[in-house]
């Protein structure tokens, strides 16, 4: 690296930072965001949180209802993730270069995954809400579609990453396609696949809260109800129970990951 290259790099870095600052300013202008206001609002907000979001005896009485809704949400995200994983595994096998049957199916699988992934879960929830109405199935389907998109991409990557040598070895013995997928591809990528599924369950519990606010189901709706009736003690309790549930599931899946990977 000589002096000229260093000079050029310095210039590039400076230009880059100027660009970032300009884009940030533009964004602040469009969204009416005032940094000073944001900075002063922050300590106030934290103060407000510590003053108002307290769990009281009164709110603890609501714990059974909250826990019931929370389990409903957790079950919904697990069901959505598991069923989506089955579909994604199929799409993933179709979409991966190692195992695809033909080009058309492969492109179709990737296309389905891309569309369902890139339309946000909120949009799916709102679209499905129109005809499915306010029940768990709407939330389930919205999570299902988003999860299929994400997991298909992840599975395609995991299958591509798994070593080709065992596939080659099985091909050499004259194994059929089903045998190859069953005995070489899936066993090799299974730890990765399970790890992705666990990751998606954690993510889906958080998304389920969001979807619940829109579709009127599960813990999201409970939160929204207490939030709108300004029962902040109950809001705090709902938030804490979500935090505990998410952390427990995260610890559990970290343990599983440590063993299988």
């Amino acid at each position, binding site marked *: 690296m000589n002096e000229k290259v260093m000079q050029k790099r310095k210039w590039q870095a400076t230009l880059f930072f100027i660009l970032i600052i300009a884009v940030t300013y533009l964004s602040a202008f469009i969204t009416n965001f005032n940094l000073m206001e944001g900075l002063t609002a922050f300590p106030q907000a934290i103060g407000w949180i510590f003053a108002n979001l307290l769990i009281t005896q009164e709110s603890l009485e609501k714990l059974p209802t909250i826990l019931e809704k929370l389990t409903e949400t957790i*079950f*919904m995200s697990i069901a959505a993730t598991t069923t989506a994983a089955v579909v994604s595994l199929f799409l993933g096998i179709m979409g991966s270069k190692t195992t695809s049957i033909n080009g058309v199916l492969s492109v179709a699988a990737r296309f389905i995954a891309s569309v369902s992934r890139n339309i*946000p879960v909120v949009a799916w929830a709102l*679209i499905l809400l*129109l005809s499915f109405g306010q*029940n*768990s199935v709407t939330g389930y389907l919205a999570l299902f579609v988003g999860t299929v998109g994400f997991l298909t991409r992840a599975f395609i990557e995991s299958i591509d990453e798994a070593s080709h040598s065992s596939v080659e070895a099985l091909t050499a013995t004259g194994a059929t396609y089903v045998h190859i997928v069953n005995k070489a591809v899936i066993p090799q990528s299974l730890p990765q696949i*399970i790890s992705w599924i666990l990751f998606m369950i954690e993510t889906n519990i958080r998304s389920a*809260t969001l979807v619940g606010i829109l579709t009127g189901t599960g813990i999201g709706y409970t*939160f929204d109800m207490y939030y709108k009736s300004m029962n902040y003690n109950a809001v705090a309790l709902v938030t804490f129970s979500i935090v505990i549930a998410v952390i427990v599931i995260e610890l559990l899946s970290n343990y599983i990951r440590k063993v299988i990977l």
Partner: protein
Amino acid sequence: METLSKPTYMKRNRDGSILIKARSKQQLVMRATIGSLIILSLIGFLLFDYTGLDLASAITETAYNLKVMFVEPALNHFSLGEAFYQVGITLGLAVLSTVIGAVIALFLSLMAATNLSNAWVSKTVRIVVAFIRAVPTVLWVLIFAIAAGLGSEAAVLGMLFHSIAYLVKAFSEAFEEIDKGIIEALQSTGSNWWHIVTHGVLPSTFTYLLSWTFLRFEINFSVAVAMGAAAGAGGIGFELFMASGFYFDLSEVGFITYAILLIAIILEVLSTQLKNRYFPASVRSES
């Protein structure tokens, strides 16, 4: 001839036949995980609340709705210019929360990296970050909306929390992976902590940090859409919520969905290119 007199140990079934598959802990845990996930899903389906659901008509209706959305997209309640402006607001919220989040995360991740900080500071930062990550973004935004008043400040503050948590994890892992020799070499010249960071750590991890930040920007775009719809943060997400929830205007929902899809795909293509260029290993994204 030793082996003949002392037969090799083989795992056998109870009836004496030789086990073909080794029962390792790994396989046991994998089976247990898959099994329990299937059982939990089945219980989940039984527990669902099916009020007011008529599956057959719902499916045909959704098919019809999707057809109207994707075949006849149109704008009825606002102009094309307005649509661009709303998309701009959503992108703006994503930019602000990503840029500010990256700056704050940079300092926090220096404290969280085990090779640059002491043990308990790094532990404290990690625990705080784990707690922040566990609260869904929409709850942060809604809480800030009452605590700090409505407006883009509340949305950006709420979205900042998850951006910081995500980036601190990514950044500190990048810092921990750098060559020990770089830090040692600088230490031996007598440079202080700040010099080590600015001349050793940051230059060698800069491209990683940028790629992670861009990945987070991609996520923040869809988060910003969601916040617009669920927390009234404005932007294209809010228009989507209005079009589907208040006007029941499917063509408009279709147009907005197309707009979101277009931008999301552009961002995804860009970040995939960055990812292939700077890190081939697995990269996880989350919302």
